[in-house]
Each structure stands twice: as C-alpha cells, then as structure tokens.
C-alpha cells in the first residue's frame, strides 16, 4: 500500500468514526428530548408558612406549612398543606390538598380565590376515654375562600376554610408564601400573570 493510499484510508476511517460519533449524539438528543419534555420543569412553586385559629369551640390555634403549585395547562393551583392544631385534649395533625381557583377579577395586587379539596385528620386523645376511638384518621372535605396579596419577595394571604366531615372545623388563618422561581408567567401568589 502506498503512502497516498494509507493517507486516504486513514482519512476515510476518521470520517467514518466522526460520523458514528455524530449519530450517537443525534440519538442522545432524541432520547433526551423524548424523556425530558418541558412539562416537568414548568410548575411554579410557592412555599410558605401559615397559622390561624379554629373558630368552633375553644378557638384552638394552628400552625402549618403551605405549598402552592401552579401549572401552565390548568387554571387551578394545587395547594397541599400540613397543620398542627394546638388542642388541650387531643393531638391533632391535618394534611390537606386543595385545588384553588383564582377568580378573574380586575384587581391589581390582590388575587382572590376559592378552593375545594380533601383533608385527612390524624388524632390521638391525650387521655384514654372508654367507648370511643383513642386514635385514628378521618377523611373530610375542604371548602376554602381567601385572598393573596401579590407584593415583592413574599406574598401574604388570608383565608377561611370550612371542613365537612367528622371534624367539621371552621378555620380562619393567614400566611406568607415565597416564590421559588423567577418565572414572570406567574404572580407571587402563583396566579397566571395578566
């Protein structure tokens, strides 16, 4: 084989290897595009703390955390919350997931909303009481109404929640949420920006 032939063959081998690398890159891009779609990166996340009182009975206070997830494909905001209720006779925890709908009213900086959801209340009586369940979980429904104030950095909100179920509590509360993204498609409250 002459030097010229060797040179041509080496160049052909190099070109073939380069083409193979390109195909691998193409395949990788296609696979990544198929797997990662933009949807997973899209939710707007607001997180914060909240507190308030239960208006029925002894005005028991509660504190908790509040998460608000907003998605581009829906006008609903999904709102999981977790609360601890300070009750003298019972240890009470409550986990709720509500769907909030921001009302289409032309107010600046104020986002009123209504919501509906489900709650699970976990309870444990501090004193043993014969004839009743000492511990357990009860499931119920939430009806919520509130307003969130779209101000920079943190967004305060107030809301009232009526529970329907074995624990038919009525709570009045307030809290603060902070945006974990700088996405200007959403207000500080998690509503779609107008």
């Amino acid at each position: 084989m002459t030097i010229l032939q060797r040179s041509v063959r080496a160049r052909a081998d190099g070109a073939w290897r380069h083409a193979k690398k390109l195909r691998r890159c193409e395949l990788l891009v296609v696979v990544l595009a198929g797997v990662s779609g933009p949807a997973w990166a899209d939710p707007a996340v607001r997180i914060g703390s909240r507190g308030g009182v239960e208006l029925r009975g002894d005005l028991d206070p509660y504190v908790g955390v509040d998460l608000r997830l907003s998605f581009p494909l829906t006008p609903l905001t999904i709102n999981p919350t977790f609360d601890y209720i300070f009750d003298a006779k019972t240890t009470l925890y409550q986990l709720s997931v509500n769907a909030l709908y921001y009302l289409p009213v032309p107010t600046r900086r104020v986002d009123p909303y209504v919501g509906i959801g489900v709650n699970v209340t976990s309870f444990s009586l501090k004193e043993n009481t014969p004839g009743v369940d000492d511990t357990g979980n009860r499931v119920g429904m939430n009806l919520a109404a509130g307003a969130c104030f779209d101000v920079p950095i943190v967004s305060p909100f107030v809301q009232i929640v009526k529970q329907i179920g074995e624990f038919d509590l009525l709570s009045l509360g307030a809290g603060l949420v902070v945006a974990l993204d700088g996405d200007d498609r959403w207000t500080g409250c998690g509503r779609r920006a107008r």
Partner: protein
Amino acid sequence: MRAMLAVVLVADGAAPARAQWAASAYIDNNVAGDVQSGRVGLGVSAGYYLRDRIGLELDAELHGHFFRDADVADLVPTEVDLNTRAAIASGNLVVPYCIRGAAGTWCPYATAGLGVIHASFDAAGMSGAESFDRTQTDLTLNAGVGVMHALTRWVGVRVDARYFRALVDESSTSADYLTDYGYWRVSVGITFGGPQLGPTSP
C-alpha cells in the same frame, strides 16, 4: 444504529393519540350508604384507553373500618370492639369525553364495572372468648362518574364518585353480614397518562 434511531423516533412520536395507558392513585371516603363514612380508603387503578373513547380499568382499594360498628355489634360480646376492613377489586369500563380549551383539558367520564368486596371482621384478643377472625367475599357491581384534569402533559388530577352494590349470599353459613349493601364512594387522586394526554391548547 439507524434501526435504533428509527425505533426511538417512532416511540417518541407515536405515544400521545391512539391508545394510552393510565395509572391512578387515590384517597377515598365512603360518603353515604350502608357502610361507615369518614374513614380513609386508599386505592390504585391501571387502565388502557383506546382513541380517547373507551377504556378498561382495573381498580384495587383497601378501606379501614368498613362497616358501621352498630351494624356488626351483635357478632361479638358487648364489650368487644370489632374491627372491620375491606379490600375491593373491580374491572371497569370507562367512557371519557375530553374537552380541550382555554381552561385546560377536562375529561369527564362515566364508568361501570364488576368486582368483589373482601370484608374481614377481626376482634383479636377478645377477653373470655376465642379470638374472632372471619371474612366474606361478595360479588359487587359499581357505576359512577368522574373527571380527569391535566396539570402537565403527563400528570393530572382525578375526582370520582361511584355507587357500589354488594350482592351477599344470604344463605351462606360462612358470611357475617347477611344482607345486600350499597354505598357511595368519592375519591380524589393523581393520575398519570390516560385520555388527558391528547393534544392540548397552549
């Protein structure tokens, strides 16, 4: 390599429209009827939908404190608290109708199916008597309505209300709850895939 690329491209492009798998996980409450309300049930379902028009779904649920205490109290001595649970399995036809618009994708549906309720009665550790541990399995019909709503391209929320009717063999010598019973179950859950996957508005 070309063949692999072609497979990936076909798999990538063909998924959304024609036939779709769906899986859901939910929490439920029996809200009315002949069983205890307010207690937590947890379930999962897996479905296969053809052309967004009809689906076959398998559903399984576990429910604690299933029967009302008063309805089963006579099975054990007065001072004993009888625990009841139920495992419910059913196969259902689901007929969705998806609406896609500015408010997102909503897929209301009707469903009906057939299954079983496996109920257990347990009063372990009864004082002064043998422990009580019995079960019964009853054929069950169910029908209801619900809605699926897309949050992202793959994930949605689902709300479902259906009526269950258990047909109990009243001549059975092994059963403890010897009459037909029915109840409404409301569930809320998260769903992956399903008819909501169709083309969506931007």
